[in-house]
């Protein structure tokens, strides 16, 4: 049967084709350096009138997932004291380490840091910087502690492209951390 032979060949061809059509996706895997992460948040409190600097950090070197955060400090401050508060954000998953603080500064018109103590009597924050539209940023500011007490300090970086109005409402969180705050 001539036809049957032809068909057998076609069948063989079809089956063999299915095996040779292969490409290996493993050749194509590489780390993505365009992907921005924030892996570390450091709060730097400088006691006014002195050069006493205390730093408190959150660190999760490999970003979300993978290994658990390696550092989540308790903030300890003196009562009734005025501090200058600066914040530093890093992406330590890249080599060299990527300074996100600088990038936030460059796009300050769409970023807002929000510092919320609970109870609110623990600390009073005043913004110390302004963006091009005269709206606060929060990269640097003044923190005045109240009486002795314990609570939380929520640190948020609100990303508000095209919607920044000085309030926390628009946009979404890029950072949202609840530090333990002890005033003693």
């Amino acid at each position, binding site marked *: 049967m001539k036809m049957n032979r032809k068909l057998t060949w076609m069948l063989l061809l*079809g089956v063999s084709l299915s*095996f040779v059509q292969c490409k290996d*996706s*493993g050749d194509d895997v590489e780390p993505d350096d365009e992907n*921005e992460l924030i892996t570390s948040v450091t709060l730097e409190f400088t006691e006014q009138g002195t050069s006493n600097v205390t730093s408190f950090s959150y660190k999760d070197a490999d970003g*979300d997932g993978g290994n658990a955060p390696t550092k989540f400090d308790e903030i300890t401050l003196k009562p009734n004291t005025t501090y200058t508060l600066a914040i530093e954000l890093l992406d330590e998953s890249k080599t060299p380490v990527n300074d996100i603080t600088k990038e936030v500064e460059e796009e300050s018109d769409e970023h807002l840091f929000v510092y919320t103590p609970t109870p609110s009597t623990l600390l009073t924050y005043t913004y110390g910087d302004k963006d091009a539209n005269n709206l606060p940023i929060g990269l640097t500011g003044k923190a005045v502690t109240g009486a002795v007490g314990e609570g939380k300090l929520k640190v948020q970086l609100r990303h508000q492209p095209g919607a920044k109005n000085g309030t926390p*409402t628009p946009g979404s*969180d890029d950072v949202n951390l609840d530090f333990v705050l002890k005033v003693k």
Partner: protein
Amino acid sequence: MLVLQRCNKKKYISPPPELFMPFHRSIYILLLTLLPAFTYAQKPACECFIKGVVKDRHTGQPVVGATVLIIGQNSGVFTDDNGRYELRNLCPGNYTLECRIVGYNPFQQKVDLTSGHEENFNLLEQEVHLKDVEITAHRTDAPSSQPLTTLSGIDLEKTRGQNLGESLKGLAGVTTLQTGSSISKPVIHGLHSNRVLIMNNGVRQEGQQWGSEHAPEIDPFIATRLSVVKGAAGVRYGSDAIGGVILVEPEELPVDKPLSGELNAVGFTNGRQGVLSSTLQGGIKNFKGFGWRAQGTIKRGGNIRTPNYFLDNTGISEKNFSLAAGYRNKGLGIDVFYSHFDTQIGIFSGSHIGSVTDLLNVIKNGEPFVKSGFSYAINRPNQNATHDLLKAETHYHFKNGNRFQWTIARQYNNRNEYDLHRPRNDSIAALNHPELTFKLTTLTNDVVWDHKPIAGKIAGQIGVSTLYQYNLMDGRPLIPNFNQFNIGVFWIERYVKNGWELEAGIRYDYRTLKTYRIVNREKVSKAFEYANFSGTAGATRNFSERFSVRLNMGTAWRAPNVSELFSDGVHHGAAAYEKGDATLKSEKALNTIASIKYADPKWSLEIGGYYNYIFDFIYLKPQPEPVLTIRGAFPYFKYTQTDASFKGIDIAGSWQFVKNTTISSKLSYLRVYDQRENSYLVMIPPNRLDNQLKYELPDHGNLHRLFFSVGNLLVAEQKRVPANSDFLPPPKAYSLWNVQAGTTVRLTDKQQLEVGISVQNLFNTAYRDYLNRFRYYADDMGRNASLRLKWKFGA
């Protein structure tokens, strides 16, 4: 016998003879159609009948148990032991006959029982052999004992302009999983995504199905039939069809037919959306056996409006086209098909959240913070997806009744997702790269051998299917790159005798998966291997032409997909931290499905019950401890396995209680239980009841099939959810009203215009649906009126 008939002027199914070349596609069925319609003097109205024989062209054997029915009516009959059928009590008019045969695609044929001629003639009840009509049919291969629900003709036309998921939503047992209004995935009996297989023109659709916001990349205008096989149909289509199979089937190629075509225009008020789609097709003079078709669709829509506000950035843009050509000579057929699908969908910007706090704030607010007016602009966040399919199919019918078919296809799915926020680094932001890119290439091969019927009673097929695919991923790490290879071998036999149809099949699949990903800047590779059997056994008993009972038991199994194995991060749409598990086993389904069906000219009823037990069902299980990230603590969900039972009933019925007036109802009831944890599972569609009251006017001049209908959809509240499993309890029950009207205007002999208008959500009801992922953020779509025009010309 006095003759004053009005229905037997044209005496036979009368296609132009040139439409039916002797050797056409696939297997031929001879429909020896005899239309000796006759009437009695006093009641000339509804005494016409159509009778005939259905035969297999190649074997010459009568086809037993084929269904012959009239589209749009509830009358259907089965062919008897000699392949004969008879449809009685027909009123004069235009009908479309449909012939469905086990293992063949249904075929439609127009029948004219109107008074086209002037002469009366006297026919007694005798059969007059007027003409042999050759009907070509293409296989569907769906197990005949499993419920197959089909959307075609006028019912499909009513859904034109909507996406695939939305189009199928009207079928009993089928719902959708939505992300807003523009992204919807079909859900069959509570199962979706990787558990539902879509056969696009005979080829498994391979996209990134694991994602709940990844809608199937298919233009429904390609299809003239959308069918749903409910229940595990793993043996024929692929082992992973645990929930069911969706068949997207174009019309047969118009081999040697004259040029014809259609132009569809649909406009929707909500989103001010417009859809244009056109088809041109025909044969080629002096090139016998050739047929071609070209088709294209353009869709553009803007922001969707809920009853009280617009949803910012919910526009859509879609451009699709397809080309098909085929050649037929004697028993040989060759088909080539290419389709390109290109969509750009805006994702509601108010659904972007960074943390649980963000989500809780939106929920508390009760409506989105982001307000907007109407706009066609599609900004970030958005997703762009293209899908290319190239398919070649060849088949050969041997004179002795055997048949060979080989299909080879290549698919390329390119999905790009853009986050709301550009990178902060200006030089990277300037590149405007998507934050997620998936490029999936899939090559499939299917070889099927149909053996000739043994003793005219047993027919069957053996097949081999292979699949090779590789995934290339860029951007924010989400799923790994992978290579996957699958080979499946199946064997199905069917036995038909005395109103009984028995079928049984078995399949073996072997799958390898190799993944590559970056962990701490190092490439890590992992290999997986899965193999298992699946089977099906079923019986259909046709008690009479009106009454049949079916029972099917089928198994299917599904290997865990890469997202279930490797997810590790925050799912921002769900405010959940999702973690995969590389040690997951395959899940196995045992599905029992039974249905009874009764249909007569006045009323019809189909009741189907199913029990789908899934062993090692993979789902996201809430973990007691949240996961801490830089954006705060997120609820932690881990892919886990359990045993789950899916029990449900689908009921569809219609009753013509007054002349021209029909009420039809569809009920979908589903209960799902986690057998190991003794609790419910999340994201299960609530029960629903759909009622339609339709008034159809008699043909009036050039107006045919003029109808008005009013309908109501009642969706219950999903009360069966695990405690404390969600940020927000399932939404309340809702009730939506709709009105529709439509008609077909015959312009000339060869041209017709179909017009349809509808208003969905008539009273602009504000509601949220449990299976819409945006239910946390915003209401569902408000009132939406549409106008649909279809101009058809040529044959």
